[in-house]
């Protein structure tokens, strides 16, 4: 079946079997391999993308259900000229180690900061609880999200 979605601001479509998940469509049909398959049942969060403003496990969402939606993947965070503040801060803090959880983690963090620009540490922990990480103990990831939030707020007030 034909599925049309708007990915990172660009209209995309693919003719996929009806049983295709959004994750499979993104990775195999649209070549966007940033979102990962880590458990295939919604436990690990490596497949996290934003659909119509909210973060979801793309391994649990059927591609057909996303038809007509706006989807943001990790590939849509930076532009040709600059990194997203979260990407900048994750890099600066050495927040990621093996990096496999990274795309999902960053998308969850973006989704949080989009809704709550000034989160508490607990709110950050709560927002990232669906993204498992085995390397970092989450510490530097949480610091990087807090720091990116500060930077985004100061950027806005300065504008």
């Amino acid at each position, binding site marked *: 079946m034909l599925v049309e979605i708007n990915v990172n601001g660009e209209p995309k479509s693919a003719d996929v079997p009806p049983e295709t998940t959004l994750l499979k469509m993104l990775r195999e049909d649209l070549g966007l391999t940033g979102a990962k398959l880590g*458990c295939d*049942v919604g436990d690990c969060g490596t497949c996290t993308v934003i659909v119509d403003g909210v973060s979801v496990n793309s391994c649990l969402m059927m591609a057909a259900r996303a038809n007509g939606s706006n989807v943001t993947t990790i590939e849509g965070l930076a532009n040709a000229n600059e990194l997203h503040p979260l990407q900048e801060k994750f890099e600066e803090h*050495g927040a990621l*180690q093996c990096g496999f959880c990274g795309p999902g983690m960053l998308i969850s963090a973006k989704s949080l900061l989009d809704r709550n620009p000034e989160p508490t540490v607990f709110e*950050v922990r709560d927002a990232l609880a669906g993204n498992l990480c085995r390397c970092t103990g989450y510490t530097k990831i949480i610091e990087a999200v807090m720091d990116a939030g500060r930077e985004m707020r100061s950027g806005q007030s300065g504008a």
Partner: protein
Amino acid sequence: MKQRGRGMACMWYPIGFTVAANPSAATVKVNTDGTATLLTGTVETGQGALTVLGQIAAETLGLATDDVHVVSGDTDVTPMDTGAIASRTTYVTGNAIVRAAEKAREILFEAAAPLLKVKPDQLEARDKRIQVLGFPSSSIPIAEAVQHSEGVLGNPAIGSASYNPPTVEMDPETGQGKPFNTYVYATQIADVEVDDETGEVEVLKIVAVHDCGTPINPMLVEGQIQGGISMGVGFALQEEILFEEGRQINPNLTNYIMPTSLDMPELEVGLVDNYDPTGPFGAKGAGEPTAVPTAAAIMNAIHDAVGVRITALPATAERVLGAIIEKQEAERAAPQ
């Protein structure tokens, strides 16, 4: 009622394999613009090994980290390495890199010595220059030394070397011997809260102070420690593969309970000031030991909080409550 408790645990841990040879080899090439390429057979598995190894090569050559490009993980291209195992990369591969980079540097010293009118052993590589020891004003850029060596003398600056930690076989009867060349040490202290009605343990904070010799990159060492502690917390409280007739019954991340961001305590990390003369620039290693003392510290904190000694891991809430009830019953049964 929630009961607070504190517990500590210390540990020691070796670097490299037990007696068995575990060599690494490395090749360092200096380019004519003063940048360099490092070839290593190890693989980046997330710990930041390639960053640290690049820093070691850069330090030996007097360059910045970014000046060294690290090529790894291809048996057609890169030299022998025992691999990302046994907390050995910084120490063993790092020592091989120091030796390889020194060979390349020696070629540059030979080329620069006549230009600076000194002997090669009077030179050092610092701040991207080859300079006379103690006379920074008497120096040439590394790039110039490479160009001269390669373009005029026909001697490209390249070095290959290997390292294997020296050990002594253990006696088969008594185990006496020298199985490792060096060890690291650490202490972790846990602050916990135990709900004595449900047995639930919440780890509030862990202070971890580790020795890794010289931290080549303190930020990455902190990352190792924080990550190791999260594995330790899971080992202590939650994680267990369960079997029924030899079949795993929880082989998934729904029922195999590893820590999420909400389950991790606040962490405070400290590094001991230490220098191991046998390691690259005094460094030892940091990977595995970070996960070693966490469970023990948490069990001691549980004991401090509610007076029960947990003897089998993980200390699930059910197991902790069982121990609390057993203790209460024993106290009741005991003559006053």
